[in-house]
């Protein structure tokens, strides 16, 4: 009987100790209260390289605004065709929870019969966080941006087509895109539209200043298309009508150098006054000299 009690006390105390330690250690310190967000996207960039990006964030189930990035998680990127899996690269999430790899434009992907590329981003789970995987299927779209003057009207011409297995250009239809120009802090959308028969034409406004030399960077961007992902193309051209203000204020009240008339007036006033002081002092010296002569005479 005694031994039984002892046995139970030991187990009971061990379980209690374990419970205490679990309670003390957790609260908010583990991942159980958080729901994992795993976003995978692809961006085809201006030099036709392809960026694969994963955003791995933990969102607090109870407090929506509490979002914590997952750091140092290893993400593997694959392209898959049927059963063939080709690894494209690995990356670890940064302090912002973002893992990126950039694939060059001549990267070979496994392409299926319809010309689609299947990309997967995979996170091998841990004890605390389950494994996550996201698949996206995209078709490689060729986007060409041309800035030309047609009949002396500045035009933005966009061509979009896919290249099929035989190497034939197939124009696409009904793809939304927008034209934007680059600013110092952000891009400004000029026009939103849709590609019809592989082409999009936009008459560029004539009153955009551009930078100080009149250069404007024009972007054409397809954003979050279900078939083509994200594609950006940009070109810089001197279509800006920047009017540099010729009047640069130099001698004002608030500049470093004062208005010239102030210098003149001040010099005249001060000059006049201080010359007078010097005149008085010179005369005082004269008095002193005369006084010395008189004193000499007095002594004699």
């Amino acid at each position, binding site marked *: 009987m005694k031994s039984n009690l002892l046995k139970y006390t030991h187990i009971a105390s061990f379980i209690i100790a374990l419970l205490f330690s679990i309670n003390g250690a957790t609260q908010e310190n583990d991942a159980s209260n958080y729901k994992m967000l795993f976003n995978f996207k692809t961006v085809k960039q201006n030099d036709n390289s392809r960026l694969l990006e994963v955003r791995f964030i933990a969102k607090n189930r109870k407090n929506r605004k509490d979002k914590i990035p997952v750091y140092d998680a290893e993400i593997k990127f694959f392209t898959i065709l049927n059963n063939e899996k080709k690894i494209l690269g690995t990356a670890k999430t940064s302090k912002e929870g973002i893992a990126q790899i950039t694939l060059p434009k001549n990267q070979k992907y496994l392409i299926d019969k319809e010309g689609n590329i299947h990309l997967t981003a995979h996170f091998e789970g841990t004890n605390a966080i389950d494994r996550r995987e996201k698949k996206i299927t995209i078709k490689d779209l060729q986007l060409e941006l041309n800035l030309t003057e047609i009949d002396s009207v500045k035009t933005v011409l966009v061509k979009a087509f896919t290249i099929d297995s035989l190497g034939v250009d197939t124009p696409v239809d009904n793809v939304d895109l927008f034209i934007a120009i680059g600013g110092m802090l952000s891009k400004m959308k000029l026009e939103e539209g849709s590609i019809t028969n592989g082409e999009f034409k936009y008459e560029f406004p004539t009153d955009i200043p551009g930078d100080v030399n009149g250069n404007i960077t024009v972007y054409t961007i397809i954003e979050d298309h279900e078939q083509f992902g994200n594609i950006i193309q940009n070109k810089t051209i001197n279509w800006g009508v920047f009017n540099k203000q010729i009047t640069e204020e130099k001698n004002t009240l608030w500049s470093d150098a004062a*208005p010239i008339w102030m210098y003149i007036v001040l010099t005249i006033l*001060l000059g006049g006054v201080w010359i007078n002081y010097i005149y008085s002092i010179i*005369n*005082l010296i004269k*008095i002193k000299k005369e006084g010395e002569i008189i004193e000499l005479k007095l002594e004699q």
Partner: protein
Amino acid sequence: MNLENRKRELVKEFSPMLEKTSSLSKIWISTLIAIILVGLYAFILQVIKGHEITGMRDNVVWGVYIINFIFFVGISYSGAFIAGILHYFKTPWKNSILRIIEIITVLSLVIGPIFILLCIGRLDRLHYLFIYPRIQSPITWDIIAIITDLVGCFIYLYLTFIPDFAILRDSPDLKVPTWRKKLYKFLAIGYHDSPTQRKILHKITKTMSAMIIAMAIVAYTVLAWIFSLTLQPGWNSSIFAPYFIVAGLYSGVGVIIIAMYLIRKIFKLEKYLRKVHFIGAGVVLLVLSLLFGYFTFSEYFSRWFSHKTKDIDLLKTLFSRYFWEFIFANYIGVLIPIFILFFKRFRNIKSITFAALIAVLGLWLNRYLIVIPTLETPYLPIQDTRPEFIYYTATWVEWSLSLAGIAAFLLLFTLIIKFVPIIPMSGIIENERNPKKNKKRIKKYLTEE
């Protein structure tokens, strides 16, 4: 008249003031030193703890220090102005008061800028004003003007001292320590009242007095422009410069009258500071109080009449929070002197001095009402909960430093009149030298009581 004998007489007459220090004057000096020491303590506390211990905060950033600065510098400029103008008057009675006026001028010009230094946040960087000056700033103009004026007033004062130093140097009856005799000799720069020396001295005194008048006007105008060239309601007024000049003159004449009264009484100089002086000064005070009242009225009346929003806010502050100060400064301070001085039968020495006292106090309050209420009613309303950021109340630090400034002024005055007689002896001799020219005037001067 025998010049030498007359000089000796005069020295004998004035030597008690120069030689002895009566016990009363010792108590007086020690009290002043005590007040200055308290002020010094407050200053050290301010340097160590920062301007937090004053009443100034983010909206009312200028307080009692600036007000004292304007006040003292106003007295100084008015003194310079009056001294300069009196130089051109050939009246015999001007002599007695000239030195008082000039000493007041120089001393208040020394004390005034010290108050500005108290208001500056980083005294360790004061030299930047001279290394990196910006001449578009009214403060730079003010610094140039004050320095120029200080040098000018010093030179002018010294010029008037020279003949007296010469008399004191030559006097055998003066019982003062040797170091003082040597000092008199040094400072007299060999002036022996020869015709050529006298001519040179008169010439440069004449040009300096013309300069002093011009400097006084220009320099106080520049100080007024520190306020009127900003955009703030209550400050951006076109008549600020003439208003300040008139107000400065008003306060200056008031202080001169008070000084005359005290000196007359304490040193028993009834022979030299006569009723005619007081009546003359009183008439000037009357004219100035009328002018001052006129300018003040035009300022506030035009604001009230055209009732712009910010002007009305300012007037509301003036008439609610500062009601009694406003009444004293702009009504009592103007009307009582006018009343006393207007009627001949009220004009006696004591009442004129009383009027001057009211005028000076009223004027200090007027300065307060110019600086502080404008800062309390800015264009964008002060929306704050901390009371010290909404309203300004001066702390003991500021008051004690103000008193210390006044005490320093009085101390320096006391010490100077121990060094040099307060009534210029050379001037007395000068008056008696030309009896034919001034016969009538001298008679009137000597017979009137």
